[in-house]
């Protein structure tokens, strides 16, 4: 995919607010004028701030994770993206169309054709077979029965459930049901898939498996996804970029590596504290400038160091340092040495801090 296409913004949220309650308008005005906090709004207007001034961009082909604790406003945010919830203020554009401008059939078409959704509760219709459930989206669109069942069968095959087409949902395990939910979303062939904690109720092993399957399937089909989770490990495993939410506010957006290395505040830092850096942090984040390193260690020949690429993770780098017995590893990009990784830099990477001052290399 070219750089142009990769950076095309599919979903664009600009300063979106959602305030729940009868006095939402007044509360919103008071927030703008007096900068009230979430608790103050609750006390004064008995309104709940669900999402507070959120701005995010989801690009074509990316998996965008939203991570936050229970009640942080993740479900509210994702429901704003297909307008299951109306924003109190702000602008949401999907594929260049302002959602608030869509009426009736136009909004339904947008949901049916461009934005799929998968729910934590799966919401499979209990009286329908797996196949009929997978075909539901197409049925709603008025696709003829034979055709929609054919497409649904293909979608089931993608998630490995071909043999279960004729069963009822209750005959399936939780993991399989969640796969049907995904197949149902895929059958309508939307460009964007919204996932609200789809795997939260599953046991860890199945969950890992589904995470990997979901990621490879999404990439293979070239879909974009917004994936909600309260589990940072899951966000890191699945997401290309991660947004961290607290009390309705998006406190940080970035790749897993960026967030771990430079947490925006103490809250994010606490979150990332327990995360293993071994596969997360890459050579380019912990390497020293080759020239500076050469000055600090004139006795070592940079050209003789073992070589690797900028995307090698800490785990691999440790292996190289230990295996070679050398002072460090040279990072090569485009045939040029762009940096040097030292044991000291690696130790700091493991702790999640950027490389320290070179004077003490």
């Amino acid at each position, binding site marked *: 995919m070219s750089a142009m296409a990769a950076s095309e913004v599919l979903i664009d949220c600009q300063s979106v607010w959602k305030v729940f309650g009868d006095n939402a308008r007044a509360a919103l005005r008071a927030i703008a004028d007096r900068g009230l906090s979430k608790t103050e709004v609750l006390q004064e207007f008995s309104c709940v701030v669900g999402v507070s001034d959120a701005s995010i961009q989801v690009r074509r082909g990316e998996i965008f994770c939203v991570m936050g604790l229970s009640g942080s406003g993740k479900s509210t945010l994702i429901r704003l993206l*297909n307008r*299951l919830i109306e924003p109190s203020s702000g602008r949401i554009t999907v594929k260049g169309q302002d959602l608030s401008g869509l009426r009736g059939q136009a909004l*339904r078409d947008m*949901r049916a*054709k461009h934005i799929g*959704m998968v729910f934590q509760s799966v919401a499979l*219709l*209990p009286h329908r077979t797996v196949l009929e459930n997978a075909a539901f*989206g197409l049925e*709603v669109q008025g696709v003829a029965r034979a055709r929609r069942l054919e497409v649904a069968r293909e979608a089931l095959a993608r998630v490995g459930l071909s043999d279960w087409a004729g069963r009822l949902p209750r005959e399936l395990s939780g993991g399989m049901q969640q796969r049907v939910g995904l197949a149902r979303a895929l059958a309508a062939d939307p460009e964007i898939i919204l996932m609200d904690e789809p795997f939260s109720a599953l046991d860890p092993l199945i969950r890992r498996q589904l995470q990997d399957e979901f990621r490879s399937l999404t990439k293979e089909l070239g879909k974009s996804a917004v994936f909600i989770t309260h589990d940072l490990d899951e966000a890191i495993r699945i997401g290309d970029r991660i947004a961290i939410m607290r009390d309705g506010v998006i406190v940080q957006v970035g790749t897993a590596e960026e967030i771990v290395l430079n947490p925006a505040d103490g809250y994010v830092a606490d979150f990332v504290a327990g995360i293993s850096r071994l596969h997360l942090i890459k050579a380019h984040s912990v390497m020293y400038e080759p020239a500076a390193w050469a000055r600090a260690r004139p006795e070592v020949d940079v050209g003789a160091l073992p070589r690797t690429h900028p995307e090698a993770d800490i785990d691999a780098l440790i292996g190289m340092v230990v295996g070679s017995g050398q002072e460090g590893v040279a990072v090569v990009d485009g045939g040029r040495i762009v940096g040097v990784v030292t044991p000291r830099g690696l130790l700091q990477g493991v702790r999640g801090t950027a490389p320290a001052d070179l004077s003490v290399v």
Partner: protein
Amino acid sequence: MSLGDLAVSPGAWVAPAVEWLNVNLHPAFAAVTRAVEGLLGGMEAALLGPPAWGVIVAAGLLGWWLGGWRMAALAAGALGFCRGAGLWEASVETLALVVVAVALSVLIAFPLGVLAARRPRVEAGLRPVLDVMQTVPPWVYLIPAVMIFSLGPTPALIATVVYGIPPMLRLTTLAFRQVPREFLELGEASGAAPRTILWRIELPLARPTLAVGLNQCILLSLAMVVLAGLVGAGGLGAEVTRGLTRMEMGPGLRAGLAIVAIALLLDRLSRASLDGRRG
């Protein structure tokens, strides 16, 4: 002032109101009477036209289709008993009254029930009305009905419909309320129109509770239709009334058993058709 003067006497204003209705809306009531009698007459003609055994076999086939051979035996057996007891015509009249009354009750209660499930205000407005409808002793409905429509099947049918509406309406509201929120979200997120959500998502999920409502509606209607024998509705109710007024045990008991047979028939067939194995 004596206590008697303080006593509430709704009859004092209900009676003139009914009187006024009678004078001013007579053509409308006459039209209702004609429509009801036409409807009932049609039903009865359809059931009494063919020989009794034909109807019994047809009921057996319907039972078989809905619930296998046991249901077939039950349906044919119930009608066979009515025929054997020499109460064929009366049974058919009762059956026709119940079927028409239930159909009308459902026609009125279902949309109102759905509306009440969606709009809390509608429900709040309906609740006291339903409470009154369900606590007033059923034969009290018969009095104004007879005053307006005079004796015959029409007041019986009207009273039965009024009596059958509350259970159906309440359970319809309950059934639609019970549909989990996530399924409605699924419908919306899939881009389904409200009508599609109603028929493809809500109705199937509400069906078991709706079946209970329909069942109650049928059984209460049957009870009311029998009671309406008092006002000349004909059918098995008339047989029971005759047994009662003449203090004859035999015919009264026979008619009572026929009523039980009809109740069984309607109860099982309606249940099988709504929450059966099909669909």
